[in-house]
């Protein structure tokens, strides 16, 4: 650590105005504050000073995403070897290696493209590099299907970072969750790469590893995808080789789906970290689950279609519901900020997610669209809550004045 600090201090002068590398000052500053807590604090405006700054907040969220990432890698390998029928003969290491090699390029490209744009913009505007992309860059690979090509992903990331973030003024000013805009762009621009039966399981080999023929009866549809194609009665959800799925399978997460979203256990580990450090709001998280469950129960009561009849606990276990509730709905920038507003925000979000899933035949998964929709309404929710508080206190003031 000391050596690193000394090195940074030694090269620092050449990045300062007048130095020969002054053009890259933002880049240097970004790295320095990423590695060490800066010894300066904000001097103007209203700030709540705390021992934690936004780079540390971001690092904590990235840390919370690690279980989902590691499990996602394992699951990619697991689904692959299951699809080619050699699962019993491969070791844990081989399964993980396959998934690691399949997922790692996505993570690298995601950071390269996103941070590249952030660096260029920061340098161009002579600002500090904003750290918001640290989290988005990790979220994006986790919410994509494993077969999504890298070049398509790069275009979507560039689009999202520029149009959902930089034009609004950068980190902390975006209206919509950047990672979800990436996914929405992909979903509408390249639907064949984001939905259907062929993108959720890596069937080919990666860097020459894991060659093999698909087993008979292979189907790559996700449980929610199967729900859409079942016409009547209760759906019989299956894994990729036709094995029936129990609720426990959905909790563990060895099922096809976006890379990081399948395992509720891994997501729960992240949730515990986020809640213990106080970074994510438990109010939002809890109310999303409550809203989703209640809506699913309501549909169960009146339901006729397979999606309506899906038990409420499977609704919140499947697809991106848990992942979205823990990591995306709680995004402090795009969610409601008032304490009462958080309940409204979460409840409506859970409600919308299940409604879109159940009632719209075009979209098997509603979490993404529900979060984006509620992002849009978050300022309105806050406004109403604040106005209500103002009215309440004004009334109280009036009563006190009248008494005098």
């Amino acid at each position, binding site marked *: 650590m000391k050596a690193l600090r000394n090195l940074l201090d030694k090269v620092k002068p050449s990045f300062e105005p007048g130095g020969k590398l002054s053009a890259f000052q933002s880049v240097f500053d970004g790295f320095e504050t990423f590695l060490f807590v800066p010894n300066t604090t904000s001097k103007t405006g209203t700030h709540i000073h705390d021992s934690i700054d936004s780079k540390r907040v971001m690092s904590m969220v990235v840390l919370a995403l690690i279980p989902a990432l590691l499990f996602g890698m394992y699951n990619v390998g697991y689904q692959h070897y299951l699809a080619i029928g050699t699962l019993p003969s491969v070791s844990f290491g081989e399964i993980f290696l396959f998934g690691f090699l399949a997922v790692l390029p996505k993570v690298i490209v995601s950071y390269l493209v996103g941070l590249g744009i952030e660096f260029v913009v920061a340098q161009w505007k002579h600002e500090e590099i904003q750290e918001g992309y640290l989290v988005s860059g990790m979220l994006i690979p986790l919410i994509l299907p494993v077969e999504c090509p890298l070049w*398509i992903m790069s*275009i979507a990331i560039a689009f999202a970072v520029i149009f959902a973030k930089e034009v609004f003024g950068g980190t902390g000013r975006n209206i919509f969750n950047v990672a979800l805009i990436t996914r929405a762009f992909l979903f*509408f*621009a*390249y639907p*064949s*790469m984001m939905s259907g039966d062929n993108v959720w399981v890596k069937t080919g080999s990666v860097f020459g590893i894991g060659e093999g023929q698909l087993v008979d009866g292979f189907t790559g549809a996700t449980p929610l995808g199967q729900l859409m194609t079942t016409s009547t009665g209760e759906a019989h959800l299956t894994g990729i080789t036709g094995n029936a799925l129990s609720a426990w399978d959905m909790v563990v997460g060895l099922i096809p789906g976006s890379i990081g979203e399948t395992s509720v256990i891994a997501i729960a580990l992240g949730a515990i970290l986020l809640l213990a450090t106080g970074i994510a709001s438990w109010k939002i998280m809890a109310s999303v689950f409550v809203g989703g469950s209640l809506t699913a129960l309501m549909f169960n009561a009146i339901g006729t279609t397979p999606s309506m009849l899906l038990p409420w606990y499977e609704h919140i276990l499947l697809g991106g519901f848990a992942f979205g509730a823990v990591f995306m709905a709680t995004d402090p920038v795009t969610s409601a900020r008032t304490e009462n507003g958080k309940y409204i925000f979460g409840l409506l979000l859970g409600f919308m997610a299940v409604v879109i899933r159940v009632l719209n035949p075009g979209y098997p998964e509603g979490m993404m669209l529900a979060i984006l929709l509620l992002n849009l309404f978050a300022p309105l929710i806050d406004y109403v809550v604040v106005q209500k508080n103002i009215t309440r206190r004004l009334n109280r003031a009036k009563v006190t004045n009248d008494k005098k």
Partner: protein
Amino acid sequence: MAEIKNNPLLTPLNLNNPITVQVLGICSALAVTSKLQPALVMGLSVTVIVAFANVIISLIRDTIPNRIRIIVQLVVVATLVTIVSEVLKAYAYDVSLQLSVYVGLIITNCILMGRLEAFAMSNGPWASFLDGIGNGLGYAGILVAVGFVRELFGSGALFGFKIIPQSLYDAGYMNNGLMIMPPMALLLLACIVWYHRSKEKSLQEN
């Protein structure tokens, strides 16, 4: 405004562009630009209609009773739109099918009423004609620009001819489905406005 009077033909192309500066006629710009050909035909139709409506209104502007001037303008525009629509059906049937209701809806295009009210009612026929041509072309220019990008990336073609080679598709390239949808047209329009304002400092608002 003096500048506009001085040059009714050229200012609508740039500093007073009906779409990027007056922000009129956005709906049709989103609706017909998914392909280049309908965008071009739409642009030309609007140009013809604005120009002649301007001339007619300018000629009779002193005789129109002020209270019913909007109705008179509407009658003139509707007549011209019907003529253009019939001509398109007769000579360019395929395009008129693609444009469907949007030719008829030129009647409600804000650019028309805007120019008639703001210019033709208070200027002579020749200036009004130039103003109509200028605004129509300013509108058509933006439509063609948006249509170019949308057809190229959304369908891999221009005027219906494949531009992006098959070999690229075989290598994994795919058309961008979002380009076909109206939201992307709005974003492209926003990019054009963005670029335009950054070039023309006088348009920037504080």
